[in-house]
C-alpha cells in the first residue's frame, strides 16, 4: 500500500480529511484517535496489507508514519 493510499484510508478511520494528514502527523493531535480507531486501523491494515499488527503498535506509535512502518515490518 502506498503512503498516499494509507493516509487516505487512515483519514476515513479517524474521520478526518486525508489532505490534512501527513505521515509526520502526530496521532495524539487527532481528535478521532481513540480505542475505536485502534480497531478500525487494525481492520484497515489487515484488509489492505494482509497483516494483523500487534496491539503494542498502538501504544508505541507516535506518528501515522509509525503505524505504516509497523504494518510494512509485519509484512516482512
Amino acid at each position, binding site marked *: 500500500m502506498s503512503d498516499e493510499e494509507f493516509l487516505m484510508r487512515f483519514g476515513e478511520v479517524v474521520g478526518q480529511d486525508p489532505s490534512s494528514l501527513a505521515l509526520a502527523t502526530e496521532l495524539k493531535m487527532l481528535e478521532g484517535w*481513540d*480505542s475505536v480507531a485502534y480497531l478500525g486501523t487494525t481492520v484497515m491494515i489487515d484488509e489492505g496489507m494482509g497483516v*494483523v499488527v500487534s*496491539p503494542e503498535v498502538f501504544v508505541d506509535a507516535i506518528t501515522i508514519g509509525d503505524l505504516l512502518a509497523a504494518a510494512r515490518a509485519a509484512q516482512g
Partner: protein
Amino acid sequence: MPGSTLTAVNYTLGSEHLTYEDIESRFGSEAAAKVFKGSGIRNRRIAAAGVCGSDLAFQSAGELLDKRPELRERIDLLVHCTQTPDYLMPTTACLLQERLKLRKECAAFDLNLGCSQYVYALSVAHSMLVSGVAQCALVTTGDTMTRTIHPRDRAILPILGDAGSASILEVSGANTDAPGFLGFELGTDGSGAKYLMLPASGFRQPRSAETAAEVTDAEGNTRTAENFYMNGAAIFHFAITVVPAAIQKLLGKLGLTFDDLDLVLFHQANQYMLDYLYKKLRIPPEKAFCYLENIGNTSGTTLPVVLAEAVRQRRVKAGSLVLMIAFGVGLSWGATVFRAPAELIAGEATS
C-alpha cells in the same frame, strides 16, 4: 462408540435494563454514540441486586426441566460454568444440584473459564457421555460480570450484560450423519492473560487499600485493581488472529468446508468484531447470526443465548450443521461443530 447431542438450550437475562439513554446521561451523548459505533451494543440486561449468576442458570434449567420433567431422574452430570460463583467454596454446581432437585448419583462440578466456557463445558460433557461415565448431562452457565465493573469505566460498563443458561446433552448414535457433536478444537495462550483480567480477585493479589485506589486512564476511564480490566485492542487482535485459524483447523480435522455449514455462531463480544470476522472468513449473511444489540456481551453465556435465539428464529433446522466458536479470558478459545437433532428445545420454542 456412541456420540452425544444437544437436545435443549435455554437462557435467562438479568431483569434490569441499562439503556442507551442511561449511558448518555451518565457519560454524555458523544461517549454513548462512540460505544454504539464501536460495539453495536445499544442496551444491556443487568442482574438485579442480590441475584447471582447461579440464579439465572437455575431459572434456565428449571424452565427446561418443567418442559421435560423426566430428566430430573436421568441427569447424572452437571457442569456449571462461572467466574462469578456464589462462593469460592463450596462449588456452585453442588448448590445447583440441590436446588434443581437432581438425584444424588449426579457428578457436579464448576468449570472456571470466561468467554470460552460454553464450548469447553460441551466438550467435557460430550467426552463423559461418549465414554460412558454419564448418560445425560446438564450444562449451565451464569455470570454477573457487571458487578465487577467500575461505575465510571466508560469503556467496559456499556459493553457487558448478565445472563445464565442451561443446556441438555444426551447420548446419540455413532453414525456420522446422526445428530451430535462432530468435534472440538480447544486452545490457550496464557501470555495474554493480562489483557482480560480481574486483578485483585483471588489469593495472588489480596484486596487492600492499594487495590481499592482509583486510577483514571488517558481516555477518562476510571477503575481500580478490583475491577474488570480489558485491553480492547489486544483482544481484537487476538480474536481476528485466533478465530479464523481455529475454525480452519477444526474444519480441516473434520474434512469440512464453509460450504458444508448451515450456520456459524461466534461469541457475541462486539458487533464490529463479528462483522469483520464474518467478512474476513467470507461467510455469507445466510450463514451468519448475531444477537447482542439489546442485551450486551454476556461473557460465557453469549453462545447459548445466540444459539437459542437462532433456534427460535428458525435458523436451526433438523440436520443443520452448526459451528460455534468462543474466545476471550485466558486467553482461551474453543470451537465445535454439531449436527442439530430433529427436535432441539430452545426454551418455549422447539426447532
